[in-house]
């Protein structure tokens, strides 16, 4: 897993070269996949809490009401992270294709300059130019979608952080079940912190992605 410092380091190791968009988007797919694991862990914690509150009767009523929110949060996070992973993988593949199409367009342009009357070459160049434009538009759309998804997942984490505070309050009211529910609240809090960290890295990668778009690679 990368840290924020690793992302800064990435910028420096490429020196004057820009980081290719297909590398940045593939990196994003990898980084956000760990979020899915953490969100699943939250879901398990929530199930454990449900089991405890089912046994605790009125003691765990308060906590019981929260577990469905936690469950919903983990489902949303998993869904968001899956979509980020899928979109960024697609963007990486499409960015590779774009490189090939751009290279072909440049070569055809050179041929056209040498043989300006050749209609076939002109048509071919136009065809590839159209394809380049189509891919650029699609890639830009994917980038915007990724930016939106990462904000969505961040909103989820913010909601979770506020749920954690309520978890602690409800755990403290759970009498003999207090300790077990505190452990679960701590687990969820730790998981939320991990997701928070991943999102910070993810947002930095998204910034890089925005910059790599302008560099035409």
């Amino acid at each position, binding site marked *: 897993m990368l840290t924020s410092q690793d992302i800064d380091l990435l910028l420096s190791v490429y020196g004057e070269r820009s980081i290719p968009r297909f590398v940045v988007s*593939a990196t994003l797919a990898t980084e956000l*996949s760990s979020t899915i694991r953490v969100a699943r862990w939250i879901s398990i914690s929530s199930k454990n809490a449900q089991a405890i509150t089912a046994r605790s009767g009125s003691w765990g009523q308060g906590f019981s009401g929260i577990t469905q929110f936690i469950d919903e949060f983990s489902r949303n996070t998993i869904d968001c992270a899956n979509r980020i992973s899928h979109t960024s*993988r697609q963007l990486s593949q499409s960015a590779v294709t774009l490189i090939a199409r751009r290279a072909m367009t440049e070569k055809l342009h050179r041929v056209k300059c040498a043989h300006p009357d050749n209609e076939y070459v002109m048509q071919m160049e136009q065809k590839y130019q159209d394809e380049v434009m189509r891919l650029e538009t699609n890639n830009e759309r994917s980038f915007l979608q990724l930016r939106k998804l990462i904000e969505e997942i961040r909103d989820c984490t913010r909601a979770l952080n506020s749920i954690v505070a309520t978890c602690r309050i409800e755990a403290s009211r759970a009498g003999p079940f207090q300790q077990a529910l505190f452990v679960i609240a701590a687990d969820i809090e730790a998981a939320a912190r991990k997701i928070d960290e991943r999102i910070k890295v993810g947002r930095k990668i998204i910034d890089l992605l925005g910059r790599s778009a302008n560099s035409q690679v």
Partner: protein
Amino acid sequence: MLTQTLLECKTHRWIICGRDPEKPEKILDTNQYLVRTDTRMVILDPGGIELFSSMLACALKHAPIHEITDLFASHQDPDIISSLGLWDQALPKARLHAPWLWEGFIRHFGMHHIEYVPIPDEGGEINLGSVSLQIIPAHYLHSSGNHHIYDPELKILMSGDVGAALEPGQPPLFVEDFNAHIKNMEYFHKRWMPSNMAKNDWIKRVRQLDIEYLAPQHGRIFKGDDVKRFLDWFEKLDVGLGVQASYRN
């Protein structure tokens, strides 16, 4: 693309990437191997241009891009290294270890940033800092300039096209029944391997190594006693079938 750790020790681990369900249908399936240390990673036979995106995603699961510092190409074939032009753009700073014989040819795949480290005919080593991998000559098996990689610590030989098998679908990672596996690799070795002399020279060299895993670039991996079974079988096999095939009609 499937990715699985094959072997590991304190200093490094071997990972296989392959059995890509997303690859175009008519493209031959290939095994790519990663050797990961704590700070660096080498990709052995990084694969063809069509697999690049999947392979990049696979590699990034195991190392950030700047820690992929080395590539190794056993020879010049497109399924081995036609992705070079893209790795050249992807990697901030890397070296390609490949036979000296093929430098002028391999550069046709596009190489502006990666450093070409020519491997002499007698082989050499890839130094990854905490780990050193031996480069074992395998000329004419099947390419005229050809090398394999041996890891003396984990006792694994990445054997390029030697031991390769062409099987449809998604075969298991390891050979389970050697005799049943022969039919998958017999024609490949008879036809792709051109020289009995080269074959026997390689077998003699490789028998001196302590090998637990023999890991080819296509098909299944040989483990334990199957390594010796393979060497015995290969020794008896008459290769260079293409010469007779050209007189069939």
